[in-house]
C-alpha cells in the first residue's frame, strides 16, 4: 500500500466496512463528538459531524467543548416521499433536530442539530417509515436525482424507476448501518463477512453523483453530476439515455488545478442497460481515481488526467460494447415551474416555493405546520425538486381546495407566489452556522440580499425574469453556484466572489466577474448589469446569455477554461 494514500483512505481500509469505532464513539458520554476517524466514516451512514459555529468562541470561553451536533441526510431516490414519510421527518425534526427540515439541492431531506445521543433514535425513526440515510454522504454514490415531472407520464415513471434501481444497485452492501443504528448495542463478534462487490472495502476515492433528466426539463442539473443521464423518448416510449460523464462543481480557492466541470456527452445507452452502465463507470473511477489527494479525486479529474478517449475506451472494454452515438435532445430550463397544474387523469400538482429549502415555522409563515397538516390527508406524494422546492403531487380533486385553504391559513399562499422570479429561483446552501466548510453566510443571508436586489429587479420591470441566483458559503458547490446566471461564492464573512454567464438550462458554466465583494459591492456591480439587461436584451434572452453576448464575461466552454 502506498504511503501517500490520504488519511481517509487509511481510515476506510481499517474500518471493517464502515464500522470503525463508531460503537465506542456513541457510548462515550463525556463528549458530543465522535472519535476522529469515525467522523470520516459516519458520512457513509449519511451524517456529518458539525459544530454550532455561532457558539464556538463563546463556548470556548465557557470551558465547554464546541456544541457538536450532526447533520443527517436521508436517501430519497428521485426525491419522492410519501405523506407518512413526510410526517415522520417532520416529527423527527422536532424531536431530535433543530425543528426544521432542509430540502436539499439533491432532492433529499437534511436534519440539522441532532445530538450524538439522538442519532440512533433518529435513524430508527427513518427505518420505521422505510427510509434510510445510507450513502447520504461519503465516498460512494449519493442520492440519485431524477426529474420531478409530476405529470406521471409513462416515460417519467420509467425514468424514476431507473433512478430507484440505480440507487439500489449502488447502495453499499455493508451491514454496518443496520448493526450500528438499528440493532443498538450489537457488536461484531467475529470477522464480519461483508462484501462490497462493486466498491471494495475502500469504496470510491471521493463522492459520486448521478442524475437523470427528462427533456425539456433539466431541474436535476444533470451536467453537474459524475454521470448525467438524459432520457430519450420516441412516441411516448422510453428508448434509453444519452450518457454524460465527468461533471462536478467543487473547487478550492487558490488551487487552479481544481475547477468546476460539466459532464461530457459520450453516447447513448438502451434503457435496459443503464444500471450496468452506471456500475461500470463507478468501477473505473474506483480503480483509476486519485486516492492520494482528495482535492483531485472526483471523476472529472480522472477523465481530464487520462483524456476522454482513454476513459471511453476503458468503458467500452468493461461494458463489452461501444455506446451508440448520443441522440438529439433539447433542454429548456433547469428551473421549477411554480403553482398549480393538472393532468389528464384529473389529479393536480402544486409546486411550492420553499425559500432556501428550509421548511420551518415563523410568525405569520407556518410552512412546516401547513405541510404536516397536508400530509395528514394528502394521498399523493411529496416530491422534492433539485431546486430546494417541494411539489405536492397527485392531489385528489377533492383535496385541491383543502390544500389551498391550509396554505392560506398558514400564510404560505399567496405570499410565496407573489415573490419575484429571482427569489423563487434562488438557491442557497446551508453554510453558517453548521457547515464546517463555510467561509461566509449563504442560506441565512441570501434572503436579505434578495430584498435589496428585488428593489432593483422591480425598478427595471424584471420581476418575472427567472434569473438564476445561487449562493454558497464556500467554493465546494453544494448550491451549484457555477451554474448560476448570478453566482455568489463566499470568500470570507461578508465577502463574495461574483460569477456571471451560466446559461439557463444548466449547460454552460459561469465565469468569475468580480472578487471579494461586500453587499454594497454586489449591488453596485449588479445594478447596471440588470439595467442593461432590461433595456438591451433580445426576446427570450436569458440573463446568462446576455452578459456573455455583451462581453461582460467570456463564455466558459469547458471546466478546464473556467479559470481562463
Amino acid at each position: 500500500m502506498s504511503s501517500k494514500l490520504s488519511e481517509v483512505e487509511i481510515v476506510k481500509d481499517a474500518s471493517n466496512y464502515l464500522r470503525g469505532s463508531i460503537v465506542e464513539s456513541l457510548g462515550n458520554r463525556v463528549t458530543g463528538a465522535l472519535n476522529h476517524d469515525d467522523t470520516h466514516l459516519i458520512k457513509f451512514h449519511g451524517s456529518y459531524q458539525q459544530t454550532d459555529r455561532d457558539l464556538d468562541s463563546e463556548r470556548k470561553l465557557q470551558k465547554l467543548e464546541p456544541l457538536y451536533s450532526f447533520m443527517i441526510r436521508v436517501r430519497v431516490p428521485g426525491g419522492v416521499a410519501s405523506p407518512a414519510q413526510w410526517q415522520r421527518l417532520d416529527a423527527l425534526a422536532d424531536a431530535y433536530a433543530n425543528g426544521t427540515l432542509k430540502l436539499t439541492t439533491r432532492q433529499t431531506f437534511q436534519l440539522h442539530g441532532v445530538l450524538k445521543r439522538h442519532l440512533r433514535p433518529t435513524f430508527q425513526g427513518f427505518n420505521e417509515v422505510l427510509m434510510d440515510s445510507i450513502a447520504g454522504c461519503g465516498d460512494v454514490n449519493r442520492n440519485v436525482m431524477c426529474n420531478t415531472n409530476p405529470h406521471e407520464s409513462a416515460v417519467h415513471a420509467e425514468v424514476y424507476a431507473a433512478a430507484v434501481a440505480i440507487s439500489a444497485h449502488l447502495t453499499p452492501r455493508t451491514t454496518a448501518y443496520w448493526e450500528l443504528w438499528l440493532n443498538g448495542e450489537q457488536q461484531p463478534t467475529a470477522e464480519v463477512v461483508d462484501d462490497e462487490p462493486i466498491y471494495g472495502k475502500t469504496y470510491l476515492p471521493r463522492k459520486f453523483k448521478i442524475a437523470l433528466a427528462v427533456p425539456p426539463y433539466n431541474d436535476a442539473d444533470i451536467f453537474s453530476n459524475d454521470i448525467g443521464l438524459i432520457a430519450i423518448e420516441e412516441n411516448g416510449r422510453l428508448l434509453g439515455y444519452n450518457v454524460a460523464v465527468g461533471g462536478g462543481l467543487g473547487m478550492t480557492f487558490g488551487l487552479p488545478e481544481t475547477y468546476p466541470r460539466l459532464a461530457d456527452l459520450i453516447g447513448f445507452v438502451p434503457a435496459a442497460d443503464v444500471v450496468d452502465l452506471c456500475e461500470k463507470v463507478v468501477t473505473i473511477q474506483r480503480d483509476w481515481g486519485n486516492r492520494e489527494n482528495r482535492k483531485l479525486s472526483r471523476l472529472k479529474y480522472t477523465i481530464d488526467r487520462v483524456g476522454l478517449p482513454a476513459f471511453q475506451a476503458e468503458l467500452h472494454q468493461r461494458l463489452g460494447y461501444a455506446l451508440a452515438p448520443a441522440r438529439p435532445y433539447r433542454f429548456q430550463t433547469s428551473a421549477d415551474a411554480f403553482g398549480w397544474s393538472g393532468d389528464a387523469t384529473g389529479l393536480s400538482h402544486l409546486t411550492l416555493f420553499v425559500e432556501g429549502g428550509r421548511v420551518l415555522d415563523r410568525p405569520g409563515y407556518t410552512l412546516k405546520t401547513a405541510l404536516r397538516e397536508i400530509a395528514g390527508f394528502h394521498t399523493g406524494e411529496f416530491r422534492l425538486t433539485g431546486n430546494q422546492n417541494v411539489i405536492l403531487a397527485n392531489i385528489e380533486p377533492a383535496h385541491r381546495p383543502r390544500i389551498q385553504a391550509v396554505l392560506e391559513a398558514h400564510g404560505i399562499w399567496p405570499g410565496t407566489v407573489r415573490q419575484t422570479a429571482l427569489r423563487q429561483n434562488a438557491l442557497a446552501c446551508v453554510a453558517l452556522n453548521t457547515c464546517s466548510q463555510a467561509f461566509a453566510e449563504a442560506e441565512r443571508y441570501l434572503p436579505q440580499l434578495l430584498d435589496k436586489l428585488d428593489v432593483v429587479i422591480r425598478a427595471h420591470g424584471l420581476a418575472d425574469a427567472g434569473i438564476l441566483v445561487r449562493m454558497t458559503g464556500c467554493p465546494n458547490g453544494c448550491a451549484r453556484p457555477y451554474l448560476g446566471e448570478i453566482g455568489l461564492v463566499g470568500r470570507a464573512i461578508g465577502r463574495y466572489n461574483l460569477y456571471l454567464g451560466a446559461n439557463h438550462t444548466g449547460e454552460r458554466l459561469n465565469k468569475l466577474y468580480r472578487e471579494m465583494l461586500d453587499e454594497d459591492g454586489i449591488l453596485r456591480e449588479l445594478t447596471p448589469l440588470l439595467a442593461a439587461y432590461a433595456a438591451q436584451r433580445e426576446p427570450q434572452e436569458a440573463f446568462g446569455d446576455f452578459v456573455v453576448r455583451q462581453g461582460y464575461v467570456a463564455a466558459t466552454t469547458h471546466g478546464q477554461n473556467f479559470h481562463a
Partner: protein
Amino acid sequence: MNQLPLTLPLPAGFDEAALRQLSTGLNAQQLVWLSGYFYGQAAGATVANGAPSATARGLVPSAEKLTILYGSHTGNGKKVAQQAAEAARSRGLTAEVRDLNDYATRQLAQEQNLLLIVSTHGEGDPPVAAEELHRFVLGPRAPQLPKLQFAVLALGDKSYLHFCQTGKEFDQRLAELGGQRLVARVDCDVDYHDAATSWIAAALDKITASTPAAAVSANATVAASPAALTTPAITRTNPWSARVLETIQLNGRGSSKETYHIELNLAGSGLHYAPGDALAVLPVNEDSLVEEVLRAARLSDTASVTLGNESRPLAAVLASRRELTVLTRDVVERYAALTPHAELHALLADTSRLQPYLYGRDVADLLTDFPTDQLTAQVLAETLRPLPSRAYSIASSLLVHPDEVHLTVGALRYDAHGRRKHGVCSSYLADQISVGDTARVFVETNEYFKLPANPAADIIMVGAGTGVAPFRAFVEERVELGATGRNWLLFGNPHFTTDFLYQAEWLRHLQKGGLAKLDVAFSRDQAEKIYVQDRLLEHSREVFAWLEGGAQFYVCGDKKRLGGAVQTALTEVVRREAGLSAEEATSYVRDLKKQRRYLEDVY
C-alpha cells in the same frame, strides 16, 4: 508526688538520677509550677527554632489534666480546639488536643477536665468523627463520670431546626453521668468566633481558679503564638479585598442553571490554601432588598444605628452587616417579642407550621406580614442576625494559579411570596461584582477534605453541580505535583450540552492522563433521571476494586440530594461486590469514613 511517672520515656541527655536531683525536695505544687515554667521555655524555643521540640513536650507532667476534644466536618472544631489549647498554655496549663475520630471511648472515664467542641449536622446528627463517642456516651455502656469537669461548645447553624443538637445531647448526658459543668454550654451560630473565645476564657478561668498552677502562670509572654509573628492574619474580621480577575458564566445557552467561574487575585495577601479548603466571601445585600426591608420596616435609610462603638446609617448596616435573605427561627423569636401578632406567636409555637413559613421567606416578608410600630432602626439591627460570610470550596490549585483563587458559584434565584429572590452571596458574586471590583474574602481551611498524603493513592471524586469545584483543584494539584495515584471523576448536572462544568478542562486531563476515568450523569437528558450514584452502581466492580486498593473517596455537592444517595449507592456497591450483608456493607462504608477515606464536603 516526688517521682516522675515511670511510664514517661526519658529523652536523650537525661537520666533518672539527674532528674531526681533536680526535683528533690520539691512539693507537688512546686513541681507543677516548674512544669509550666519549662513548658513556657520550650514554647519560646519552638518559636525561635521554628520546630516543635518533642523533647520538651515529653517532659511535661500533667497535674491537672486538660483534654480538648473536637469533632466537626469542617476545620472549625479543630480551630477552636487549637485556640483553646493555646489559651490554656498561656495560662500555664497543659492541654492535650484530640480529634474525636481518634479518641478511644474508654479514655473518657479517666478524664478530669474536658473541653468538648462538637458540631451538628443534617437532622441533628453528630459529625462522623463524633459518632462513636456519641453512641457510647448516650448508650447503656456509658460509665459514671464523678471526677469529670467539662464544658461543651456546640457548633451549629441557627437556620436549622435541630440547632446544636449534638452539643446539647453531649452536655446533658455528661451531666447525667455525674460530670460537673465548668461553665454552661455555649451554642454557636455560623459566626462562632466571638462566642467560642469567651467560652474558652470562661472555662479556663474556672479550671485555673481551682488549680494551683494558675498562681504561677504569669509568664504569658513566653506563650507567643507563632501566628502572632507573621503579618496580620487575614480573617473574618480582617478580610482580604481581592480584585476580581475574571468572571465567566459556565453554562451554555439555554441552560436552566447559572454557574459562574470567578477568579480572584490574592497577590500581596500572603493567603495560602490547599485543595479542599474553602474561600469565605463577605457578601453585601443587594440594594433592592435593602430598600424592600426599609420600606417594610417603615424606617429611614439614614437612621443611625450603633454597632459596638461605631454609628452607621441603617441602610449601610442592612447592606453589609445583617442577614436579610434568610429568615431563621431566632430572628422570628426576637421579632415576635416586639409585636403582639397572635398569628406570629402561633407560628412560633408550632414547628410544623414555622418551618414552611420560613421556607422561601426573607426579612422583608416577615416585616410585611407582621408590621409593627415598635421598630426603631436600632431595634431592627439588634433583631436581625449578623450577616455571615459564605464559604465556597476553592476550585483552583495555588501551584497552578499562583496568587489566584478560583470559585465555582451557582447563582441561586427563585420566585417566592411575590418577589424575585436571590441567594445573598451567589448573587453578590454574580451580579454585583465584575472584573476590576474587589470582594472581601478569607480562607477557611477544611481539615479533612484533603488530598491523600500519599501521592500514589487513587482517588474517586463524586461531584454534582458546583460540587465539582474542589475536584478541579484536586486534579490540578495532583497533575502539577506528578502524583502517580489515579484520579477518577464522576460528575452530574442536568444537561450535557450546557451544564458540563469545566468540560474542556476535564477532556484535556482525560487525554493527558490527569484523569484516569471520567464518568458523567446528566439527569435531564433522557426520560428517566440518571444521577452520579447510578454511575457508581454501573461501575460497581471498578469502584470496589479502587477502594480495596486503598483509594480515597470524595463527595462534594448538595447535602440533601447527593450526600445520602451516594452513601447508599456506595454501600450497595460494597454489598454487591464484596458479597456482604447490608449491615456489613454499611459497616464497611462507616469504616471508610472513620479512616477518613470517605470524605464529604456537602452543603
